[in-house]
């Protein structure tokens, strides 16, 4: 067997088992072509039920106004913007995997990138709901766009971080969608060419845009993927930076800090990887894709979680130090009284955040824990709870006690419609994810084939004999026929 590429045995294989290209196609297309399982239907229907609950909750809010939520004077953002920041953050892991790891030539991303990118798109869709419905009079939502109007024309305020958000989130969604779908084209063509039923031929025929796999097309496709990755990399960093500007450019104690952009980006990647773990630990089992999303992948992503979790931890400690070092009594009050003090009204949320985000991921310093699926799944949930509370702490504890102590008695708790809205976005997210896992290949087929002969277990074992060969022998046997 001639080899085009070679990788050291030291690295673990990324595709387990002895497989050829056709086997890869079969394995990954099987869940798409088989009838959905009972488990799929149960999950899907629960998601749809949650989505309906969300739609009802939002309808209540639209009919009766934001008064349906327990927001009050000083806590104007509450659960709503907490959820917005949380969902946007989750989206970031998908772009990190698909774009940044592509630029860094991390081979392991191929097993998980397609599902992670899909997760990004669905998470950003969920995130976008919150600022839109939070407007209250949502029929005026188009006011955020700079369109010629009869009020002057009075243009939008391009100096405002809230407007930057509009551009950042909409660009992020569009570019992620384009990146994801252009990557899907070849895989949809595979499904089209395998299709037996008429509807399937038609559906995937339309979806695949007439992809043929011509060499020239692949060449352009590679160029496109690389440039989109190069564009998405600064884009993803900019998105959460701009989200953090929503807070950092204000003069509210607890928000007015320069550490926010890097701290938000690290936190976003942290929570996003946790969500990827939640989804993939289940997906690989249910769709029998353990050979493609291996323990090696889980292990590597847990390393990212412990790294970013610790960065977030450092950021929390830096914030505490800076509030003391600033010697501003309001800053000190926000951090040491409203957050750190466990007996203050919201002190519990700060320590819950600390426990989930900083302490608990430290368990992943141990290889055995990184490779334990139950621990991974449990931790992924814990991290996402922690990251939700991080945003809750930032938003609520900074503003619930303002400069007017007579207003302090109000304790903010959400109404059923606020909770319902949040649950509804879970419904939206998982409905989309279930449909995606049913109709699209959850693993990038062409990309797995591309790395198969380098990182596949069956091919790696053949490389043993090569280790002993001299360079001349190797070149003679496996060269590309340059001399002939």
């Amino acid at each position, binding site marked *: 067997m001639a080899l*085009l590429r070679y990788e050291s045995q030291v690295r673990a294989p990324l595709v387990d088992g002895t497989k050829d*290209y*056709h086997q890869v196609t079969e394995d990954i297309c099987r869940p798409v072509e088989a009838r959905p399982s009972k488990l799929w239907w149960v999950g899907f229907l629960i998601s749809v039920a949650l989505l309906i609950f969300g739609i009802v909750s939002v309808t209540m809010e639209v009919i009766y106004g934001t008064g349906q939520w327990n927001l009050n004077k000083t806590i104007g953002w509450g659960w709503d913007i907490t959820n917005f920041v949380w969902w946007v953050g989750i989206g970031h892991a998908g772009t990190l995997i698909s774009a940044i790891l592509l630029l860094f030539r991390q081979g392991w991303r191929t097993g998980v990138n397609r599902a992670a990118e899909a997760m990004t798109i669905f998470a950003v869709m969920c995130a976008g709901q919150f600022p839109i419905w939070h407007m209250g009079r949502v029929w005026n939502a188009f006011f955020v766009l*700079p369109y010629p109007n009869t009020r*002057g*024309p*009075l*243009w939008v*305020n*391009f*100096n405002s*971080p809230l*407007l930057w958000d509009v*551009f*950042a989130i909409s*660009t992020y969604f*569009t*570019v992620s969608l*384009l990146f994801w779908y*252009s990557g899907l084209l*070849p895989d949809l063509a*595979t499904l*089209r*060419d*395998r299709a037996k039923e008429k509807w399937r031929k038609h559906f995937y*025929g339309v*979806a695949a*845009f*007439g*992809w*043929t*796999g*011509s*060499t*020239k*097309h*692949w*060449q*352009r*496709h*590679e*160029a*496109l993927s690389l*440039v*989109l990755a190069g*564009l*998405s990399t*600064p*884009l993803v960093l*900019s998105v959460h930076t*701009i989200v953090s*500007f929503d807070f950092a450019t204000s003069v509210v104690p607890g928000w007015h800090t320069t550490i926010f952009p890097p701290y938000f980006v690290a936190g976003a990647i942290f929570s996003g990887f946790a969500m990827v773990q939640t989804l993939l630990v289940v997906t690989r089992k249910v769709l029998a894709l353990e050979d493609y999303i291996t323990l090696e992948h889980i292990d590597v992503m847990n390393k990212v979680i412990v790294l970013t979790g610790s960065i977030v931890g450092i950021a929390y400690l830096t914030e505490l130090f800076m509030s003391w070092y600033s010697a501003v009594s309001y800053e000190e009050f926000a951090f040491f009284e409203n957050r750190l003090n466990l007996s203050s009204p919201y002190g519990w949320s700060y320590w819950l955040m600390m426990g989930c985000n900083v302490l608990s991921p430290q368990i992943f310093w141990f290889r055995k824990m990184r490779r334990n699926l139950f621990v991974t799944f449990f931790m992924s949930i814990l991290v996402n709870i922690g990251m939700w509370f991080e945003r809750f702490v930032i938003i609520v504890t900074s503003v619930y006690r303002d400069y007017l102590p007579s207003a302090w008695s109000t304790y903010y708790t959400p109404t059923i419609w606020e909770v319902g809205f949040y649950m509804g976005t879970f419904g939206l997210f998982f409905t989309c994810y279930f449909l995606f896992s049913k109709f699209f290949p959850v693993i990038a*087929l*062409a*990309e797995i*084939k*591309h790395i198969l002969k380098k990182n596949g277990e069956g091919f790696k074992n053949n490389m043993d004999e090569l280790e002993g060969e001299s360079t001349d022998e190797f070149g003679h046997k496996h060269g*590309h*026929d340059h001399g*002939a």
Partner: protein
Amino acid sequence: MAVKKFVVGNFDDEAVLFPAVKKVRRAGYKIHDVFTPFPIHGLDKAMGLRDTSLHTAGFIYGISGTATAVGFITWALTVDWQINFGGKPFFSLPAWIPVTFELTVLFAAVGMVLTFCYLCQLAPFVKKDHFNPRSTDDTFVMALECTDKTNEEEAISFLTTVGAKEVKVEYKETEWWLGRYDKDKKLFHKEN
């Protein structure tokens, strides 16, 4: 509509395909295209294809996004309707960096994807023939275009000797089409 005649070789290993492409070209055959299930690095060079200029297009789209953002915001906030935001200058460029950056990325990404689709003639409902449905699965398909001078028998045996597992002569529509492709109305005449 142009239906042409091809000698089509199917390979099952890219390591065989690579030297085969070189030998076929050296022997003077005209390769119409090679269809592969995944990108094979260096195959475009081996086939003598020139580099794509898609990157350059992306750069131009990006720059036009930058220019659009800076130009429009400058006009809107300093010429058309000046608003005093906290006593800051009307022309406050640093505050416009985020929107400018986002539009740069947006223009570059959308422009490149549209250009990619245009160059490759990809769109919903478009149909094309790619000789062997297995070429999106595990088969590497090399199609040689037959001209008046091509000796089919020779081409077939040549492809077999360079490693093709299965070689066929096929008549194919090379352009894209929409809807059904009517076999009876094919616009070609069999020479033999």
